[in-house]
């Protein structure tokens, strides 16, 4: 991955930190204090000779180019006063022209937008007023006058302008003010033009990694929490549900209530909750349902394992229940021994260090950067509810045969071509799905929209509903036509709808399209990853003819689609 760094100050330390931390990245450091020139050269698809390219293989090299895309990621970190001239006057307490400032912001934004065409994604650091600058004091937020007011306005304008591109993300500088004791290093500034502290560079580096993880669908999606002294104060087995501490007029109880509110808030952005606790299930559910101050209720949890078994095994079972990989899980427990056990047994599960005192729980939770994601779709917002519906489906399935159950849930499938309304969710699904994924092709939203717009290519989305609720857009299939052949490029289905034969419908549907287009065959080539065994299992049972990793259906035969779907093609 090639990452370009453009800044008005010397951020070479950041470049070195990233490079030496992770050999996957090649860092292109543009000369500092030449922001406009650097952006123009990126727009022109050119890395100037003055760039340092830090490659893990051989140290510094000059001017290496030649890939299709100039940069996979561009990180742009500037101070407002150095790229917006009129704003510098503002810091010198001169009278300023707000329109002129905003025009300069517009020009700067246009340059970034142009540079975006040569980059996979762009991260732009938001602007802050220099932290030591008192500004106009009590008037500093006065409309169109104070420095704070003007910088806020500039950030809003920048954000509005850059929203035209789906692959530009504005990184909020403010969050580092909370994370770092020292932002600046004045001695390094006067000696090397390195303005920021090592501490800040470290935090920014971590933030870049977390954002890259988010872009590639590696953000965490499930929080597994313990109960006693994690979700509430006290030991349920000792004090009974009436005696546990939540809310009330007790500061510890208030802290647990706040922690629960914070957990609940995360469900609104698509993070699932599950319980893993050493307790008697009946007693724990009684506490959850009966305690008047409980914020989280039974329906807020996608699943649980409340028993006396090993927590590592319980977490494996929870992951199976919700069809997520262990790398999607965060485990929160007040007990360091349990945390160590899970961290050692299941290294893919993220087990954050947890504060000793409940008053810090909310802060610890909401400052986790592992949920970083490029977007939050409507489906995400409904996801927690969907998993509760899924739990109910599972309960019904226990009483019927599989086929009877599939008929009983009254599935409705909507098939639609990729369009501006569904492309964000489609990008998410393509980038997040690991298990039922033919090729695990990862691309930014812009990249795959560009791909789908080519005349020989097509991308179809599948939305699944049943009598329990709407599972949303949970399937994507894309293909390209070559001669008389349909080549399936992506075949992706969310784990949320696995076990409902949706994959048979998806395959049948494209075979039908291939027949209508009078093609000879449909070809699917499986690309193995360490996680996509489920799609291979399906392909092997699908009736397609196998030739090494390629599966073929000849179009002179019909593919049988099960009859329990009500299909609508939009």
């Amino acid at each position, binding site marked *: 991955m090639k990452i370009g760094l453009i800044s008005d100050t*010397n951020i070479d330390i950041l470049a070195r930190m990233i490079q*030496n931390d992770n050999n996957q990245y090649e860092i292109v450091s543009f000369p500092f204090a030449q922001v406009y020139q650097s952006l123009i050269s990126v727009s022109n698809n050119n890395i100037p000779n003055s760039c340092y390219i830090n490659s*893990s293989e051989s140290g510094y090299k000059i001017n290496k180019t030649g890939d299709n895309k100039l940069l996979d990621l561009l990180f742009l970190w500037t101070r407002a006063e150095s790229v917006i001239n009129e704003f510098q006057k503002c810091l010198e307490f001169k009278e300023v022209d707000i329109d002129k400032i905003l025009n300069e912001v517009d020009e700067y934004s246009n340059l970034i937008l142009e540079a975006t065409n040569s980059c996979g994604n762009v991260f732009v650091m938001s602007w802050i007023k220099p932290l030591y600058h008192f500004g106009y004091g009590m008037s500093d937020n006065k409309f169109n006058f104070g420095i704070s007011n003007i910088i806020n306005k500039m950030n809003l304008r920048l954000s509005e302008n850059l929203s035209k591109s789906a692959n530009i993300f504005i990184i909020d500088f403010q969050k580092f003010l909370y994370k770092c004791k020292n932002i600046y290093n004045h001695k390094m500034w006067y000696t*090397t033009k390195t303005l920021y502290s*090592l501490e800040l560079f470290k935090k920014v580096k971590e933030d870049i990694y977390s954002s890259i993880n988010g872009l590639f669908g590696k953000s965490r999606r499930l929080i597994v929490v313990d109960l006693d002294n994690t979700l509430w104060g006290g030991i349920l087995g000792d004090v009974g549900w009436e005696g546990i501490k939540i809310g009330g007029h007790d500061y510890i109880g208030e802290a647990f209530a706040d922690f629960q509110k914070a957990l609940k808030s995360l469900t609104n952005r698509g993070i699932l909750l599950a319980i893993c606790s050493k307790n008697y299930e009946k007693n724990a559910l009684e506490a959850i349902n009966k305690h008047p101050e409980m914020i989280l209720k039974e329906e807020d949890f996608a699943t649980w394992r409340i028993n006396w078994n090993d927590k590592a095994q319980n977490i494996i079972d929870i992951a199976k229940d919700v069809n997520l990989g262990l790398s999607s899980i965060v485990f929160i427990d007040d007990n360091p021994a349990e945390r160590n056990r899970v961290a050692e047994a299941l290294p893919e599960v993220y087990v954050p260090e947890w504060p000793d005192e409940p008053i810090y729980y909310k802060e610890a939770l909401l400052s986790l950067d592992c949920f970083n994601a490029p977007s939050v779709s409507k489906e995400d917002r409904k996801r927690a509810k969907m998993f509760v519906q899924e739990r109910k489906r599972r309960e019904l399935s226990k009483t019927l045969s599989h086929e009877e159950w599939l008929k009983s849930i009254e599935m409705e499938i909507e098939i639609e071509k990729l369009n501006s309304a569904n492309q964000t969710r489609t990008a998410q699904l393509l980038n997040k799905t690991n298990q039922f994924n033919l090729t695990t092709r990862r691309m930014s939203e812009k990249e795959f929209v560009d791909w789908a717009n080519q005349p020989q290519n097509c991308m179809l989305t599948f939305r699944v509903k049943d009598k329990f609720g709407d599972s949303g857009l949970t399937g994507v299939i894309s293909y390209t036509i070559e001669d008389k052949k349909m080549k399936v490029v992506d075949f992706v289905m969310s784990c949320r709808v696995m076990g409902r034969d949706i994959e048979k419908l998806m395959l049948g549907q494209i075979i039908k399209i291939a027949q209508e287009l009078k093609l000879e065959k449909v070809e699917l080539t499986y690309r193995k990853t360490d996680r996509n065994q489920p799609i291979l299992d399906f392909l092997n049972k699908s009736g397609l003819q196998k030739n090494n990793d390629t599966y073929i259906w000849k179009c002179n035969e019909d593919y049988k689609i099960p009859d329990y779907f009500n299909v609508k093609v939009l």
Partner: protein
Amino acid sequence: MRKINQLMEEAIEELNNQQSNYNKLENVPVEKLNSEGSKLDSLGLLTFINIIEEKMSNEGIKIDLMGILMEGDPNGVMATVGSFTKFLEEKMKDLK
């Protein structure tokens, strides 16, 4: 006050986060810093001096190492890890 050697160890560890695998420093007396054959380039050296200064400052010792470096380090106190450690230890004694 912690021992200078421990402080040096921490500073080298911190600096090595930015050094390539080929140029990691070792906390051994002969490791060159501001002398020919050093694994540090100018930014690396300044960063290292800055880290040491900050660590000394956290221990309550204000010392302008960057100033010595800017004057060309006439006595070669920053030539190697060994000479630098010795210099810092002597400074500590003087300040006591």
